[in-house]
């Protein structure tokens, strides 16, 4: 019991912090600095709890499961959440600031719980805990029509997706008789038609969470309309949590029905479905991004494309590919968070996030422009940045079992296309002159964080071992996710 | 040998640093005089009794490709070296005013490449000089800067380079088949080259193809009709002293190439193809003679006449090649004739163009035959000396031109009588147009505006007298030259 308490301590600290922040918000709603500081402090305490007193184990029949991999992801999610907190100070409306941060914290709690569970019920609950605050946050800029539209759209599509997911998970439960993934994994033989339906509905539900075809529609509007800090969390933390838990469900619980997505070697299972979703996302995301003029929308389409790349790795479903998927999703989240950070600052300076608003950035704030360069080039997969190694690793391992050549060809080709739109953004930022002289606004914390993220992206590109090590050392991925995976 | 090629090159560098044009000219002349003395010394020290190629120098250059720095000279080379050493200062002297420092540098560079060409014995080494000569020549031709000169220079360069590439491609094949670039070695292989080529490429006509490549390359340079079209423009548009170099020296590179590269390597092909080759030579002779007849511009006329005279050289070469065995006397006569003709034509043609240059200087650029008349009256020295040159050109006995042509015709008549017979027509036509010049330009009534036509100045006389003297000397004592390439 004590161990369980210790295991959940980080989440508990976050909840307490949220309550404290709400309290400060009631008593001193204008003390935004204090509110942010309190939030960050709470986050740091949670991180300390996570790092200083690690416990591993399976609690409450798989409701809470802790192991090095889960802790790594909790840490990453916590970090991404705190990044959004810092950005929030620049991008959220002044009114009800404390409430916004509290919502962010609640969402982070949901994500962290999601990372540490192997139970369908808990998964659904944690997902909802993640999503509900995000729906509200998306609509938080109350005077902006776009934000309201974003919130509504996110909420409506999210609810439909949640319904799909709930149906799916209940069908799986119905067939397996248990909500625990390890028990479900004991099922074998030909799949029950109900199970097939369950798997299909689950995949559709997650398609929403990680923004891939066919539930990608919300992404551009939400990314554009929501306050940028909220969008940053939706794009980074929420995606990491979604991909991580999807990986867990599919490989830990449903490993028997992987199937194959190889060209001409089709075998039924979830892999072919994922393959189709991946292919569609990669193409749609990259092609649609070509014509965007708003950087946030552009990042949304790029997010769809990246969701597709990740699914390719999942299709391959072997230890190296999964390591690559997890590696890449973390890299992607760091990079996107950084890119949104730049957008936050630019928005504050120029009042918008259209391409024209980036003009002259290289002149007015060269450091920021350089960071933007790092992030976008990393997203485009150019060395020596982390995004390149991530993609390389992903494609290499997806191809290693030789069956996903068609997907890799498609992804590599579309990835080449993607450089075009990233360059268009960078052209505005670095090449074109500013239309009028602008005074750079001070946003030291955000700027510092952006630089930090850029350095991280560069460092992880030069020494990807730093992250692959923890992911693959001691066969982390193999033991924890795939031990029941039978090929 | 190396020193000989190096002198004008260093001279060019020196001249480039000269402070004024006059000094440049003086330095240039001094350097050329040095070269002349050097070449003369070589000719005298050449061991005629031993014959063959002497003064050999050989160094590794690009060993991985079998390319060596390899120079040496036999009688033929020495004769051409002498000719080069003679004509270069002659041209420099004939240039008169309007000569710039750049011109002197270019002439010296051209002399370097010419000397290099006539001494190199490794094909690549030879080719380096052969091709490089185009650059100074190109710049010299276009030096008036007129549109026509520019176009002519461009045509000259591209035509000759096209030939050069063909030559290079041909020799690459030969090197592949034989493994050597060494011209002496290749000459020793001689008749084996053709079968080796066929073996290398597993295709019997390979030898023929390579032969055609090399022939084309050289034919453009000489030129042989129908590859001559670049020539009249280049000769007539460039300044006269440049034309002297072009006709006196550069055309000899082609003839030298025939003798050094083609004939020794493909004796059988030469014999097999002798009939078409002879027809080509005849075409060159006759076409250019008739074309010259139709010209009114003196420079163009002499340009065609130049082609015509080189045609005799080719006639001799092909005639000798057509009968590889037998008739030793006739063969020797024709060969000697060809070599003499090379030298004589160089001398005579250069002198003629020199006179045209003098004429142009006086007439302000006019050189149509119809523009002049009766100059005999006002410029007797001019008339006399130019007349000698013209008579030398048409082969008047006692002057140098006669001996060469006589030997060629004599030899050819024995070897291939019909070709000699047809070529005689060319000889007649030549006589007609050359005499026509004398008549139109120097005889007849004197147009009023030429009444103040100045005669040759002392310096001009000094310029041409040595060559006129040589014409007489060689006309009377041709053995001075013949001795160089015949064992005593």
């Amino acid at each position, binding site marked *: 019991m004590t161990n369980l308490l210790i295991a959940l301590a980080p989440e508990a600290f976050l909840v307490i912090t949220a309550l404290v922040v709400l309290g400060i918000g009631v008593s001193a709603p204008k003390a935004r600095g204090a509110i942010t500081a309190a939030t960050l402090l709470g986050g740091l305490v949670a991180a300390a709890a996570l790092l200083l007193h690690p416990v591993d184990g399976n609690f409450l029949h798989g409701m809470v499961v802790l192991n090095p991999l889960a802790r790594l992801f909790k840490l990453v999610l916590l970090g991404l959440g705190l990044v959004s907190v810092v950005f929030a100070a620049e991008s959220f409306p002044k009114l009800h600031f404390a409430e916004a941060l509290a919502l962010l914290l609640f969402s982070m709690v949901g994500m962290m719980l999601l990372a540490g569970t192997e139970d369908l019920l808990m998964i659904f609950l944690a997902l909802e805990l993640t999503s509900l605050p995000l729906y509200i946050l998306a609509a938080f800029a109350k005077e902006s029509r776009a934000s309201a539209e974003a919130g509504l759209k996110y909420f409506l599509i999210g609810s439909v997706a949640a319904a799909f997911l709930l149906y799916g998970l209940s069908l799986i439960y119905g067939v397996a008789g248990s909500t625990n993934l390890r028990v479900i994994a004991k099922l074998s033989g030909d799949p029950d038609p109900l199970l097939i339906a369950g798997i299909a509905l689950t995949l559709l539900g997650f398609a929403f969470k990680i923004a891939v075809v066919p539930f990608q529609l919300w992404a551009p509007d939400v990314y554009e309309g929501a306050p940028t800090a909220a969008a940053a969390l939706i794009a980074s933390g929420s995606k990491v949590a979604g991909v991580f838990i999807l990986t867990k469900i599919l490989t830990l619980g449903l490993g028997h029905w992987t199937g194959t997505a190889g060209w001409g070697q089709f075998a039924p299972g979830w892999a072919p479905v994922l393959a189709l979703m991946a292919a569609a996302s990669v193409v749609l995301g990259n092609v649609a991004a070509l014509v965007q003029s708003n950087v946030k929308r552009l990042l949304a389409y790029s997010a769809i494309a990246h969701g597709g790349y990740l699914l390719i790795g999942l299709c391959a479903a072997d230890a190296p590919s999964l*390591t690559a998927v997890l590696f890449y999703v973390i890299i992607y989240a760091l990079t996107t968070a950084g890119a949104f950070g730049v957008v936050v600052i630019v928005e504050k300076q120029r009042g918008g996030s259209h391409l024209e608003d980036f003009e002259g950035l*290289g*002149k007015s704030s*060269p450091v920021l422009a*350089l960071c933007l*360069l790092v992030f976008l*080039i990393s997203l485009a997969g*150019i*060395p*020596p940045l982390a995004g*390149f*190694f991530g993609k*390389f690793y992903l*494609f*290499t391992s997806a*191809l*290693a*079992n030789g069956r996903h050549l068609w997907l890799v060809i498609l992804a*590599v*080709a579309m990835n*080449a296309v993607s*450089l*075009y739109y990233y*360059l268009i953004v*960078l*052209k505005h930022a*670095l*090449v074109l002159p500013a239309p009028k002289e602008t005074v750079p606004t001070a946003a030291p914390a955000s700027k510092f964080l952006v630089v930090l993220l850029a350095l991280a992206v560069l460092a992880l590109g030069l020494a*990807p*071992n730093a992250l*692959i090590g923890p992911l693959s050392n001691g066969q982390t991925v193999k033991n924890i996710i795939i031990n029941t995976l039978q090929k | 040998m190396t020193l000989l090629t190096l002198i004008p090159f260093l001279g060019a560098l020196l001249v480039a640093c000269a402070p004024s044009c006059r000094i440049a000219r003086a330095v240039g002349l001094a350097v050329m005089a040095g070269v002349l003395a050097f070449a003369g010394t070589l000719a005298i020290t050449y061991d005629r009794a031993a014959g063959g190629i002497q003064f050999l120098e050989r160094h590794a250059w*690009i*060993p*991985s*490709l079998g390319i060596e720095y390899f120079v040496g000279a036999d009688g033929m080379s020495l004769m051409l070296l002498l000719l080069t050493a003679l004509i270069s200062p002659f041209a420099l002297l004939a240039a008169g005013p309007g000569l710039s420092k750049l011109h002197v540098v270019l002439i010296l560079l051209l002399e370097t490449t010419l000397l290099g060409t006539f001494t190199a014995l490794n094909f*690549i080494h030879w*080719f380096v000089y052969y*091709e*490089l000569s185009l*650059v100074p020549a*190109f710049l010299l031709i*276009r030096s008036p*800067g007129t*549109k026509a000169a*520019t176009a002519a220079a*461009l045509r000259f*360069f*591209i035509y000759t*380079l*096209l030939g050069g590439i*063909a030559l290079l*491609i041909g020799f*690459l*094949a030969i*090197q*592949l*088949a*034989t*493994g050597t670039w060494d011209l002496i070695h290749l000459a020793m292989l001689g008749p084996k080259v053709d079968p*080796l080529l066929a073996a290398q490429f597993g295709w019997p006509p390979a030898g023929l193809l390579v032969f055609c490549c090399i022939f084309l390359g050289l034919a453009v340079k000489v030129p042989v009709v129908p590859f001559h079209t670049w020539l009249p423009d280049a000769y007539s548009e460039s300044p006269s002293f440049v034309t002297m170099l072009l006709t006196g020296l550069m055309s000899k590179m082609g003839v030298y190439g025939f003798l050094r590269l083609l004939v020794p390597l493909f004796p059988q092909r030469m014999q097999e193809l002798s009939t078409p080759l002879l027809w080509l030579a005849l075409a060159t002779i006759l076409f250019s003679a008739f074309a010259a007849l139709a010209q009114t511009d003196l420079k163009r006329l002499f340009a065609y006449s130049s082609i015509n005279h080189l045609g005799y050289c080719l006639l001799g070469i092909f005639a000798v090649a057509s009968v590889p065995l037998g008739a030793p006397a006739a063969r020797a006569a024709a060969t000697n004739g060809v070599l003499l003709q090379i030298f004589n034509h160089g001398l005579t043609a250069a002198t003629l163009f020199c006179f045209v240059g003098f004429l142009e200087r006086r007439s302000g650029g006019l050189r149509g035959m119809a523009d002049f008349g009766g100059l005999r009256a006002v410029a007797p020295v001019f008339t006399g000396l130019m007349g000698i040159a013209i008579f030398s050109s048409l082969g008047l006995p006692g002057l140098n031109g006669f001996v060469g042509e006589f030997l060629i015709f004599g030899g050819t008549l024995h070897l291939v009588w019909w070709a000699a017979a047809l070529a005689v027509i060319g000889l007649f036509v030549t006589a007609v147009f050359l005499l026509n010049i004398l008549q139109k330009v120097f005889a007849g009534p004197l147009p009023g505006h030429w009444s103040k036509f100045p005669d040759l100045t002392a310096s001009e006389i000094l310029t041409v007298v040595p060559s006129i003297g040589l014409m007489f000397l060689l006309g009377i004592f041709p053995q001075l030259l013949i001795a160089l390439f015949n064992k005593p």
Partner: protein
Amino acid sequence: MILTATFLSAFLGAGLILLLPERRASLAKWIALLAVLAGLGGAKFAFLSFDHSPAAPDYQFLTWLPWIPQLGISFFTGADGISVVLLLLTGIIAVTGVLFSWNVTHRPRAFFAFYLIIIGGVYGVFQSFDLFLLFVFYEIVIIPKYFLIAAWGSTNREYGAMKLTMYSVAGSALVLLALIATYAVSGAQTFDLFVLSRGGFSSGFQAWAFPVMFIGFAVLAGLWPLHTWAPTGHVAAPTAVSMLLAGVVMKLGSYSALRVAMTLFPEGLGQWRTSFAILATAGIVLGALVALAQKDLKFTVGYSSIAHMGFVLLGLMTLNRAGMGGAVLQMFSHGIIGGLLFAVVGRMIYDRTHTRDIADLGKMDLLKALPFATLTFTIASVASMGLPGFSGFIAELTILKGSWIAFPWLLVPAGVGIVITVAFTLRALQRAFYPSGEPMPQSFDPITFPEKLGAVLLMAVTVCLGVFPSMLLNPILRSFQAPLMHHLVQEVTTK
């Protein structure tokens, strides 16, 4: 380690420049100069200390460090004769490029930082023996190119930059695909070129992997018909970048095609070589023909690059020592000559006259106004035509020799290509620099000292190489007997 110093100096220089405060921005060029001089020093040291003795190892200066062991990726650099030659080329072009950029005053820090990143990437490619490492360096070059052209370029720069970048990236995508497939198929869990080149790839795999990888690399080498990025890119680029593009970046493509694609897939090479040889020859002839029709002097030079790189590719496809050795020599030679031509056109002429129209230039009497530029361009043109005495001659000579063995029937078009090359070079030289009409003399700023220094350096190299090609040919030819390449050479023994 001396090799590592080459690219480290460049990257460090770039980092230092980025750290410069704004008011010290003018120091950027000095730092850049120091960095490239250090690189040149390293490259020159490597070139000079490369041991030629027969007993010496084929691959020298080897450095091996583990990097990403999970994927079998290591930091593995070294050099054979080909590498040292191209490293030297990079050093020379890098230094002269800085000299010709001495007048960059618009955002100099960013300019020189991007510039140095390209240099570092190029150095890296020429010494990598780990394919992943090689690919990383190869890709590093792409992005700075875009910005240098888009921000500091001239005519139609944004279009040119984007076109060039997209072609590069498309090529890289092909390479990446083939590379990943190679890794997956080999099953050796390594990117070590020495291990991978030991073969074991099925003919079926080689038959598609070779063309994919070769074309991917050859896009950068200007393989016809995928060359169209080159002229527009060259023209749009600022002088130093044109020099880099023509001088070394195009060589990245041909070098990598040789080092990686040809080495890994000899069977695929055997099946495809004739097709690629035909494309290369088409590049020679068509590149030259198009150059003949250009009105813009820089376009002329740009298309001439295509023709010259056609010779490189043709030489590579001959698969004999003469042809391939000539190809590498031609890479070096064209690097120097192309760099020189772009330097004259871009820096000496365009920066002063603000036009590159051949007809307009012809009216300016450049011979009088800018005699040094005229002299330099004349020498560069003569060298570019492949006249003897300059570096291009021996290179083209050996390539032609190789072609006689491998593709005798391609010699005629190749020869025609040479003649057309001469024709357009002369035409441009003549019309732009030696006016034939009534010139209108104008006066321009005199050629500055850094320009003269750079031009003299490049001219000296091309002449020196023209007279003593053995300097480079010996190490190059030696490399074809080394383990990675010897199986490629299909030598017909000469008698």
